[in-house]
């Protein structure tokens, strides 16, 4: 394998990581900050993608589509928080799992009801499509570079919001002891609605951005959801930095594992077996990574030690 290809694959791994981060960012916000296991995050991601596809279909504008994704997911998020989620904060993780699992069913089938069972069309706008040539002669899709930039910007913004701003501090305080922060005069409920809407909006944006190069269809959120959970757990819950680094680790492992494991095994066995065993190992690679990291550091890379 040539050096250029290796570099390109590392870049691909990074890029896939950032893409995962886009999905994980909102989840981490809600999960880390509010202590809520939100399985329906994947549904918000889907809602964003569907909203974007619909608006893009009518207007042809990608920017409007992104705005629609953000707005639709944030609004749905706010409503869901007001109606359902706020009754779940005091409950344990189990109830949250069940309730948000129920939300998945409602959203997935509801979307199918509205939009039918077939995938929707959403494409990259012309000004972002096609490859560009990077130093070293690597041909790389412009859109993926765009994703990397957007992902990093979101990472920075969220990190600052949580650690630096007073709202961020209040939110984290509420995560520790809701009753107490309320007794100090903070309207934690309203704050949580905002955070949830923000997290949902991020999911929606991610759905639209990623939907443009993947498929926009019912159920698109669930595989992503699991990966996003893997990412934030590896990074350590509640840590924006951890989510970013976890995402990149997962991205690299997945991308490079898929390529190198079969090659590696070819050194030991015949190509057919190597390809199939290597590929199976590759599909397990991120879970092995996650298991290993948690065994080594039980609260993830950047999680608070208990």
């Amino acid at each position, binding site marked *: 394998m040539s050096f250029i290809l290796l570099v390109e694959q590392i870049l691909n791994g990074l890029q896939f990581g950032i893409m995962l981060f886009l999905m994980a960012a909102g989840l981490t916000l809600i999960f880390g900050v509010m202590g809520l296991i939100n399985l329906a995050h994947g549904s918000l991601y889907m809602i964003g993608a569907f909203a974007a596809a619909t608006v893009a279909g009518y207007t042809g504008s990608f920017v409007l589509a992104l705005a629609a994704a953000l707005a639709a997911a944030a609004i749905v998020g706010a409503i869901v928080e007001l109606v359902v989620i706020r009754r779940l904060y005091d409950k344990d993780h189990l109830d949250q799992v069940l309730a948000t699992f129920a939300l998945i069913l409602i959203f997935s089938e509801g979307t199918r009801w509205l939009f039918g069972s077939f995938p929707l069309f959403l494409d990259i706008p012309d000004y972002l499509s096609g490859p560009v040539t990077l130093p070293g002669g690597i041909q790389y899709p412009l859109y993926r570079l765009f994703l990397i930039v957007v992902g990093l910007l979101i990472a920075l913004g969220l990190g600052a919001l949580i650690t630096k701003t007073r709202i961020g501090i*209040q939110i984290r*305080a509420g995560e*520790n002891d809701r009753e107490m922060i309320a007794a*100090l005069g903070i309207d934690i409920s309203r704050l949580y609605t905002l955070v949830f809407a923000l997290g949902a909006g991020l999911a929606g944006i991610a759905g639209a951005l990623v939907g443009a190069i993947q498929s926009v269809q019912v159920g698109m959120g669930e595989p992503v959801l699991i990966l996003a959970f893997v990412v934030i757990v590896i990074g350590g819950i509640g840590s924006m930095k951890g989510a970013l680094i976890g995402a990149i680790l997962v991205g690299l492992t997945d991308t490079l594992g898929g390529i190198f494991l079969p090659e590696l095994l070819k050194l030991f066995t015949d190509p057919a077996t190597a390809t199939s065993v290597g590929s199976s190992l590759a599909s397990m690679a991120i879970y092995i990574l996650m298991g290993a990291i948690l065994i080594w550091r039980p609260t993830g890379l950047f999680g608070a030690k208990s």
Partner: protein
Amino acid sequence: MSLLSVSNISATYGASQALFGVDLQIAEGEVVALMGRNGMGKTTTVKCICGMLPFKGSITFSGHDLGRLPSHKAARLGLGLVPEGRRCFAGLTVYENLIAAARPGYWTHERVVELFPRLGERRNQISASLSGGEQQMLAIGRALMTNPKLLILDEATEGLAPIIKQEIWAAIARLKTEAGLSILMIDKSLKELRAICDRATIIERGRTVWRGEMAALTNDVTEKYVGV
């Protein structure tokens, strides 16, 4: 006119009733002791005042009926709580704990650190790893940062070294005389309460059984209700 007026409230935890009729009055600038044996309902009363527990009866605070207000609105009227068991925000640093709920007023971060220099030294430490006494100081500082009209101290000197207790008592005395703050105190140290409080209320099994001037609190009464 009284700042806080609690009249005949009752409250339950699930099926078990904890308060059966508590009365309590605090006037502006007054320091009142709430006394009683363990488990008699002192903390429960505080929870009702701060909107953390539903109750029957009426509580008014600086002219507002607290019956329907959610906890955060009640707090914004000027209730500052130092809860039993400290309840610092474990994952936040000392500094973050202090500014989390700060509201503008006399008490600023600088003033609190001046009151408790230890908090300045530990500024960036996660509060979960503070010593018990440090957490207690932090809880008081945090309540002050909201610049309350009425400070509620539930066992605020529990677990403090004598010298720090003295400091805190001194600080409370200062709050009373210099800042004119109204204070509701729950504490087991009768001697200090006597020195600092204007009036006292004693509850027994969820009922107010004695109210009056501190001076009128005779040893017979304390013997009967507090056991000393």
